[in-house]
Structures are given as structure tokens and as C-alpha cells.
């Protein structure tokens, strides 16, 4: 049996405050996130669990409608939040419009500008980058000891990470361009003997954006602050995909804290009278557990059996937490 060493990770590295579970879709990441948040809250830490998945499922697991309502207290010290990306984008569009109206004293937004605002919001990347930005907001605001991310499926997470470095490089270039422009402005001012120039508001915006994107990619890649766990199940495809994903993650410098096995068929069943179907499954599971232990070795932090019912509602979450972390 695999030892339960997940709790030890949290004790050994108290600085790791951004907790993330990754893995293929449908392996139980949300369940683990909720259970971990529950565990940490019970240990007396202030915890925020939030969903960055456009198809947020925290509402389901806590059985409370928290969608788009900001941080909501579930039990003392445990707060949950689901970001309503659509709403955020709409608000944001209006903020931009208001800013334009204020800056230029306009009553109506010029047509080509309005069509641009509409078109930008219709971009598929808009929602993701809005969420991305919200995450930074949440983390930057602070106020919690732990932040548990209910991560988007692997592909998206990687997309975020890869884009973060691309964006960062781009903004670096654009900022450089802007700074060069400013130099020419200054030169013209020198030749014309004009006074000091106004600050370049765009340059400041760019520096702000650069800072935001840096922060968000840092949250995902900070070795000190981040604990990233992979969820796996003893199945061939899952193991193979996870190995690949782990390689990719390490390429983007995401610090891996370890692996958690989910959906184990309880070993005790083996000694009972069970149908052939289950027997076969158990034999397969044994085989793949060996593969897992030879592949990931002591990076396996916990093994969680399949529950007899859905993990929803606080009692089930508590049960799950005890399975993951032992008694607390």
C-alpha cells in the first residue's frame, strides 16, 4: 500500500501557498481541490478555492450557488469563488467605453471604435485572458494563506503557460518600441525647447500589463510558492499522457510536487466473492500500479479509492480529505 505522504508535503514546504491539481479532464481534480481546501481550512488556515475553468464546477461540489458571486464562505476559513468570465468581459467592455467617453468628452463611442470593442470581446481568447487577469487580481489582493486553483484541463493550462512567455516577450518588445518613441518625442522637445513632456500613459499601461502577465505566469511557475500535483488513475492512456504532460510542464518550469492516484478499486474486494468483471479490473489495476510506481517512484503522494458515491457536499468532502491526508 502506498504511504500517505501528501500531508507531509504541506508540512515540509509551508511556503507553497498556491495549490494546483492538474491532469486530464474528469479524473477528479475538482474533488481533490475541494478536499485539500477543506483540509487546510480545518487546520486553521484561511483558504480560498477558486475556479478558473469556464465550466466551473465548485457550485456542484459544495452544493451552493457561488457562480459569479465573489468569495463565499463555505465553512469558517474556507472561501470558494467561481469567476463569471462572461459577466466580467461585459463589465470590462463598459469600463473601456466609459474611459473613452471620459477622456475625450464624448457622448457616444465612434462607430469604428465600438465595432472594435465588440470584435475584441468576441475573440475566443477574450474569456480566457479575462479569467487569467482575474486570477492575478485575486492573488495580488491577498488576504488568504492558501489559494487552491481548480485548474482548467491540461491543454488549457499549458496554453496559458506557453502564451505567458510569448505575451511577455511581445510586451517587452512593444514597451521597448514605446520607450523609443518617447525618446524621439524628447528629442523633438529638446530641439523645440519645450518643457518636460507629459508622462506616456500608454507606456504606463504597458508596464502594468507586463507586470500582470508576469505575475500570473510566475504564480504558475514559482518554485517556492507553488505546489502542483498531478492526478492520475491506473490506466494506460492516463499514465502515458501524464508522462508527456509532466515533460511539458517541466519545460515551462512548472514545479511538480508529486502525483496522486485516484479511482483505485479497493484491494479488499479481491478477497470477496466478486464477478469476473471486477476481478479482471483488479488484476489490471495491479499491473498498472506497478507501472506507476516504477515510473513515478516516491513522487506518489497518495492513493485514493473510488468512493461508493459522488463526492458532493461537505460530509463527502471531509471523508475524501481524510483519505488523502490521513486523520487531522
Amino acid at each position, binding site marked *: 500500500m502506498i504511504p500517505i505522504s501528501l500531508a507531509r508535503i504541506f508540512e515540509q514546504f509551508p511556503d507553497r501557498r498556491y495549490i494546483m491539481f492538474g491532469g486530464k479532464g474528469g479524473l477528479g481534480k475538482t474533488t481533490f481541490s475541494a478536499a485539500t481546501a477543506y483540509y487546510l481550512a480545518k487546520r486553521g488556515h484561511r483558504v480560498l478555492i477558486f475556479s478558473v475553468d469556464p465550466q466551473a464546477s465548485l457550485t456542484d461540489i459544495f452544493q451552493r450557488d457561488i457562480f459569479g458571486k465573489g468569495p463565499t464562505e463555505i465553512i469558517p476559513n474556507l472561501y470558494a469563488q467561481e469567476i463569471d468570465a462572461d459577466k466580467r*468581459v461585459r463589465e*470590462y*467592455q463598459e469600463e*473601456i467605453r466609459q*474611459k*473613452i467617453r471620459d*477622456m*475625450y468628452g464624448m457622448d457616444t463611442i*465612434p462607430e*469604428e*471604435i465600438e465595432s*472594435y*470593442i465588440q*470584435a*475584441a*470581446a468576441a*475573440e475566443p*481568447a*477574450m474569456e480566457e*485572458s*479575462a479569467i*487569467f*487577469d482575474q486570477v492575478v487580481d485575486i492573488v495580488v489582493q491577498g488576504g488568504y494563506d492558501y489559494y487552491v486553483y481548480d485548474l482548467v484541463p491540461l491543454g488549457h493550462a499549458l496554453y496559458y503557460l506557453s*502564451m505567458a512567455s510569448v*505575451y511577455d516577450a*511581445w*510586451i517587452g*518588445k*512593444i514597451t521597448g*518600441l*514605446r520607450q*523609443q*518613441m518617447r525618446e*524621439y*518625442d524628447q*528629442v*523633438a522637445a529638446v*530641439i*523645440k525647447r519645450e518643457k518636460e513632456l507629459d508622462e506616456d*500613459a*500608454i507606456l504606463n*499601461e*504597458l508596464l*502594468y*500589463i507586463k507586470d*500582470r*502577465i508576469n505575475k500570473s505566469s510566475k504564480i504558475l511557475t514559482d518554485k517556492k510558492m507553488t505546489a502542483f500535483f498531478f492526478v492520475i488513475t491506473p490506466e494506460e492512456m492516463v499514465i502515458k499522457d501524464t508522462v508527456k504532460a509532466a515533460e511539458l510542464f517541466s519545460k515551462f518550469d512548472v514545479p511538480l510536487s508529486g502525483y496522486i492516484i485516484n479511482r483505485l478499486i479497493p484491494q479488499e474486494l479481491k478477497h470477496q466473492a466478486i464477478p469476473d468483471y471486477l476481478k479482471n479490473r483488479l488484476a489490471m489495476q495491479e499491473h498498472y500500479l506497478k507501472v506507476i510506481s516504477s515510473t513515478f517512484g516516491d513522487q506518489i503522494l497518495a492513493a485514493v479509492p473510488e468512493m461508493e458515491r459522488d463526492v458532493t457536499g461537505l460530509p463527502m468532502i471531509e471523508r475524501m480529505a481524510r483519505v488523502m491526508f490521513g486523520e487531522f
Partner: protein
Amino acid sequence: MSKEEKKKGGFFQAVKEFVYGVAAHDSARFALKTRASMEHLFILITMGDMLGVPILPPYYSLRLLPYVVPQISTWKRRMLREKDLTDALA
């Protein structure tokens, strides 16, 4: 008296502007010219979705939009303007 003074000031101002035109206008113009062509490059990069080249996350490029509202129409005009080799003569 004051009228005469004003006239005198006007004359000196004119001479000053003339000297500036002779010596410095080209340099200042070029600096601004370089700056403005960079500005157009900037708009192309940040607002490029208008031409179908998204480079920044749209969420952030929208943030920059308010600042380039006045430039967008001249930028579009400039993109659409026919250029001629002889433009480069002066």
C-alpha cells in the same frame, strides 16, 4: 506704444521662427516623423485584430484602446493611402 511693442515682438517671433525653420525644423520634423511611424507600428501590433493579427491578449489590447482613439482613423487612412516614391524627396 503697446501696439508697437506687440509688432516688435511679432517681428522677433517671426525671425525666431524663420531661423528655426532654416536650421532646426528638419531635425524636429524627422524626430516626430520617426516617432509617428513607430506609433503606427504600435497600433498595428496592439490593435492588429482589426487587420486580423491578434498579438496581444485581447483583454489587454482593449486596455490600450482609449489612448489610441484619436490615432486610429489617421492610422487607417495612412494604411490605405497610396504611397509614391517621390514622397521621400523632402
